[in-house]
């Protein structure tokens, strides 16, 4: 038998994790990291920040997973999964950090699988159903532009070194997510009449949920110097919209606040599905 015929040889090869997405190869997302909370950082505030950003990423990733096998082209299958995996990796680290510092000792899975919708702290933008590809790209553009602005500030100036490191890694990922979404918003806006209409409607449908993002990140405007998160995001959106032959809608404030646990009716079914297997088999090992 030739060497390349032998199944065991290919199975026995060394661990080559490089070809795996980040987040698949470890059980403890912050293994080996000094988890001490530095002086001057309020653990409750840090935990709340990590849970909010972690829930945003987890719920956004769950919605991206719903695109799986339904994307308009195979290249988009790969790209949307890439983005979903990046966000899932961010969620794993942020929820783990939250559980470490909030005094409860909860793991990432405790936080993901055992909380009720009203205890989720994600912004409502990420829990909305996927809609068509235009809506999904409008949401991804706004979400990643905002998250990139936030992570840039956290990476530069947050007092917690763990959060700083998580944010620094995330910045590189989010820059790609924002570019990917921007490219599609431009293609769709400047494509056919139908795609232009859908892209405009997508941006309009996202608009009511944008102000909530700025409220959620308002605190960060004092960190990192430079302009506000809002100015940065609005600047990016204006630039993309112009290239897409579209206009940026107004971001009127709307009642409701995901960070306070006040969600749309869309979150509960999403979490019900996500948590169904874990909850059906209490004490299970995975």
């Amino acid at each position, binding site marked *: 038998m030739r060497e390349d015929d032998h199944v065991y040889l290919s199975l026995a090869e060394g661990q080559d994790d490089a070809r795996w997405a980040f987040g698949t190869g470890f059980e403890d997302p912050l293994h080996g990291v000094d988890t001490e909370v530095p002086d001057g950082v309020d653990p409750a505030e840090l935990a709340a920040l990590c849970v909010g950003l972690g829930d945003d990423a987890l719920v956004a990733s769950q919605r991206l997973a719903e695109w799986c096998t339904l994307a308009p082209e195979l290249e*988009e299958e790969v790209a949307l999964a890439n983005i979903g995996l990046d966000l899932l990796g961010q969620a794993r680290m942020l929820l783990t950090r939250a559980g470490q510092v909030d005094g409860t000792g909860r793991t990432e899975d405790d936080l993901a699988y055992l909380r009720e919708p009203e205890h989720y702290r994600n912004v409502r933008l990420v829990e909305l159903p996927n809609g068509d590809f235009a809506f999904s790209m409008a949401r991804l553009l706004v979400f990643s532009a905002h998250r990139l602005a936030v992570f840039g500030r956290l990476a530069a100036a947050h007092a917690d070194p763990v959060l700083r490191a998580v944010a620094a890694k995330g910045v590189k990922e989010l820059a790609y997510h924002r570019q990917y979404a921007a490219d599609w918003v431009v293609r769709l806006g400047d494509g056919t009449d139908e795609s232009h209409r859908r892209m405009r409607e997508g941006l309009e449908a996202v608009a009511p949920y944008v102000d909530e993002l700025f409220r959620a990140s308002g605190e960060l405007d004092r960190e990192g110097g430079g302009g506000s998160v809002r100015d940065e995001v609005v600047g990016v959106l204006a630039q993309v919209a112009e290239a897409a032959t579209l206009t940026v809608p107004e971001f009127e404030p709307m009642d409701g606040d995901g960070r306070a646990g006040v969600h749309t009716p869309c979150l509960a079914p999403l979490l019900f599905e996500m948590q169904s297997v874990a909850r059906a088999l209490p004490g299970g090992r995975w």
Partner: protein
Amino acid sequence: MTQTATAAAAGADDRLQEHFDQVIAHDRRIEPRDWMPEPYRGTLVRQIAQHAHSEIIGMQPEGAWITRAPSLRRKAILFAKVQDEAGHGLYLYAAAETLGVDRADLTRRLIEGRQKYSSIFNYPTLSFADVGVIGWLVDGAAICNQVPLCRSSFGPYARAMVRICKEESFHQRQGYELLLTMMRGTPAQRAMVQDAVDRWWWPSLMMFGPPDDASPNSARSMAWKIKRHSNDELRQRFVDMTVPQAEKLGVTLPDPELRWNAERGRYDFGTPDWDELKRVISGDGPCNEERIERRRRAHENGAWVREAAAAHARKQAARREAEAGRSQGRVPPKAGPEAGPGDREAR
């Protein structure tokens, strides 16, 4: 054409055929620009397209569990695996395109039921244990089938298979590791694993195709070295590899005839239900319609997106041309924000 010209053309064809036969005989590779007999090309298109379709349809049974994976680590592993399958589909369609067909046309043929995909994906995934069992048995069988294809006589196919087999072996290990973990869990989890093994064992054996004496295309594919081992030989190899793994796992394989044959130095095993295989291949499996319907829906719902991308590309090209006409050598401004890397390699 004159008689002389016809004779000369026939002579040239003979020389090309002779060269092709020599390449095959010496275990060298045929490349896309080389001459090849039309039936060789046709067989490869059929096989590579069927393989590509299998990767894409194969995303569905497992992809359905990404949103329900019971831990975030398992969610990441499964998400990455299903993404790999999309990547495999892409390499394989690209390999098929070197033979002069195009992906859109192959996709149409799949959706219209004119080309097939592996019948294993017409079975349903009923619990999360199925994710592990698919990794262990289905990917295990796929590896047995595919590792020899890394030496296929057609270069682009062989090279695509090297990368695919490496990733498949990773998937198999991940699937087996999930099952080992579940078997150390609760009695309910162990029962889930056994139930999944009971359902997937026979369909996995059918993945090697009908028995050799009933496999119409096998002999020619072996002569052309597109295929390297017979269906029955690969099936035997899979059984021999899998039985010790099942013992280590602590599950029972649902075959009363399965036993070690010391004389042969291999396992004896029962006969799969070939009528069932025929039914599933001919479209009458539990999920055939659902799988094709979902693929059709994705393709049709995506049509406006693909049209928009093409329309935008045409507009951009026209603008570039107009710009070049106005001021030679000046590059038009780039659309979109100047954020980070424009392209990132797919993982």
